[in-house]
């Protein structure tokens, strides 16, 4: 994955570059909005990480300009401003996701991986398959090893999101935002409890578990036989 980091803080940029490289990604870096805009126009990046406050050209303007030029590279906005309103403004400007500083690197990584995947065609898939687990988005039916599993509507959407990002790490915040549309801190481990309920339905009475906990990051649905 090729990532462009547009960030004026040298230390943050270096940290991101190094950490992304360790994860096997290629990261390039621009220190201001102007340079970032030129690089994003030219290079074929999978994801842009854009700081909101940038010298020369504001982060939202960078994204807005790219979108106006029909450049649809997914963009994650990083911001020190954490309010809901700022997030809405960021998404309205053409950003695809929004993360408030300070953030954990695992959260950032999970989000950019999800963003990069979004451009791939399986967005329109009507069936998700992981191992012997099958989710049909049209008939709202879930089967494992041919056996029907009854899920509550919310459990279905939870599994749907996890399977759409199969093989990727999905964080608790991502689940809360995308499955429940809540952009606030729920104070307790609500997501964990819902996951464990889902797990008891799809994994408990079957041989190999598909829904895994990734320590310090979140969850992933993956066929461990691979």
């Amino acid at each position: 994955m090729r990532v462009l980091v547009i960030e004026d803080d040298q230390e943050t940029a270096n940290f991101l570059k190094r950490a992304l490289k360790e994860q096997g990604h290629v990261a390039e870096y621009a220190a201001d909005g102007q340079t970032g805009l030129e690089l994003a126009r030219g290079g074929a990046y999978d994801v842009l990480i854009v700081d909101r406050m940038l010298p020369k050209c504001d982060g939202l303007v960078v994204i807005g300009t790219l979108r106006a030029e029909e450049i649809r590279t997914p963009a994650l906005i990083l911001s020190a401003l954490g309010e809901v309103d700022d997030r809405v403004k960021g998404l309205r400007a053409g950003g695809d996701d929004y993360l408030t500083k300070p953030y954990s690197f695992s959260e950032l990584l999970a989000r950019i991986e999800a963003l990069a995947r979004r451009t791939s065609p399986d967005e329109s898939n009507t069936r998700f398959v992981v191992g012997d687990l099958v989710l049909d988005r049209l008939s709202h039916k879930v089967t494992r090893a041919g056996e029907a599993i009854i899920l509550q509507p919310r459990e279905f959407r939870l599994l749907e999101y996890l399977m759409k990002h199969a093989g990727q790490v999905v964080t608790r915040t991502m689940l809360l935002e995308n499955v429940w549309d809540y952009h606030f801190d729920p104070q307790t481990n609500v997501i964990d409890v819902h996951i464990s309920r889902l797990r008891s339905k799809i994994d408990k009475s079957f041989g190999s578990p598909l829904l895994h906990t990734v320590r310090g990051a979140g969850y992933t649905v993956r066929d461990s036989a691979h």
Partner: protein
Amino acid sequence: MIALTKLFRTVTFRLSLTYLALFGAAATLAMVYIYWNTTVLLTRQLHQTIDAELKGLAEQYKAGGLDQLVKTIADRSETPGNSLYLVADAQGHRIAGNLSAVSPQLWDSLGPVEFVYSRPAQGGTEARLAYANVFRLTGDYRLIVGRDIEERRELARVIGSAMLWGLGFMALLGIGGGYWVSRNLLARVDEIAATSRTIMGGDLSRRLPVKGSGDELDRLSESLNLMLARIEQLMISVREVSDNIAHDLKTPLSRLRNRVEAALGKPYGEPVYRDALERTIEEADGLIKTFNALLSIARLEAGAGGEHRETLDVSALVRELAELYEPVAEERGLVLMAASDDPVFVCADRQLMGQAIANLLDNAIKYGAPKEGGTASGSKPEIGITARATGDMAEIDVTDHGPGVPAQERERVLGRFVRLEASRSEPGSGLGLSLVAAVASLHGGTLKLEDNEPGLRVVLTLPRERNALINGAAAETEPRAETHHA
């Protein structure tokens, strides 16, 4: 000099000058009117007197001819008074009367005329104003009957000088009074300005002077003093809050520091280090959460945030959140019951409202469990959440059967970082209810803590959105039924 120009520039002084000009004009008008009316009255009387006299003389003339007339006039001239008479021949020689010399101009004119004549006085003669009627008798004799009207001239002079003196005094009093009043007022305004400068300089305990007369300046000062008291109180509470913040953040920070230090001191290798680092991250995340909550509360209290308000069915939101929290409650051995079936619309920011309700549910789950052995029956203790419309308000209440909050503490627990002793064992920052209160007041609502007998009942009240009822088809029947009842 500067003080004087400052004085002349005051509103009071300028007002005095304006009033002075107005009163001056009014007084002049009144005087002129009186003078004019008096003159008219006097002139009429004069005409009547002369006419009456002429009538009498004409009768005499008719009865006894010129001789009779001359005799009568000679008689009348003897009586002292203001009447003037003259009968003269064609050459202008006086035959009878008390008028001596007559100007040729008067001699030639006929009818009513005003003229100046001279009359003997102490040390010579004096010129006086007279009014007369001139007649020609047969044989070119002249008859002049008139009256001395020097008094009228005198009246005009008296009124004129009275006017001048009056206006002079008025101007003097007006300017002087204006100066005096302005100087007094200016002194008080200067005093208030000086005090407010001191307050601006940082001495918030100072108050503006109040004379006790209850005048407009006093009232202004009193209002400003109330404002200053409020500002001082706010400053004190801000100071208290920052003291609290410093204290409550110091504890986790020093815990974090100690843990890292302890890990560094141990020569155990990776697993120990990893564990220490993970716990450090956890602690840091907790701190970040606390900071975020603090910033949110501060922004909400400043009236910022919530720009994305929409017509929101809180009833549906309550159901959704109850569904989200229900498994957590169950894990703790509690039953979460949501009773909110009919849609209740409010104008609110979904995320803020969600956060507020989530905080209430989280509190109820954390602190709502009855003490060990406290359960009366075998059934699981219940946490209830209800959303309903009561009149113009939407009411969301969360009830539990936990230890509750003592009545005297209910106001206090809404403050930042306030945690009851009994709840210290649970993780939390003491900011949850403060945030709910801030969200409530931002949306024009209130947050109240009540006794659930036993347990706690938290009531979040918000103004209902009336317009939404017209849009929502499902909701349309409900308010109609209600208006009928009302």
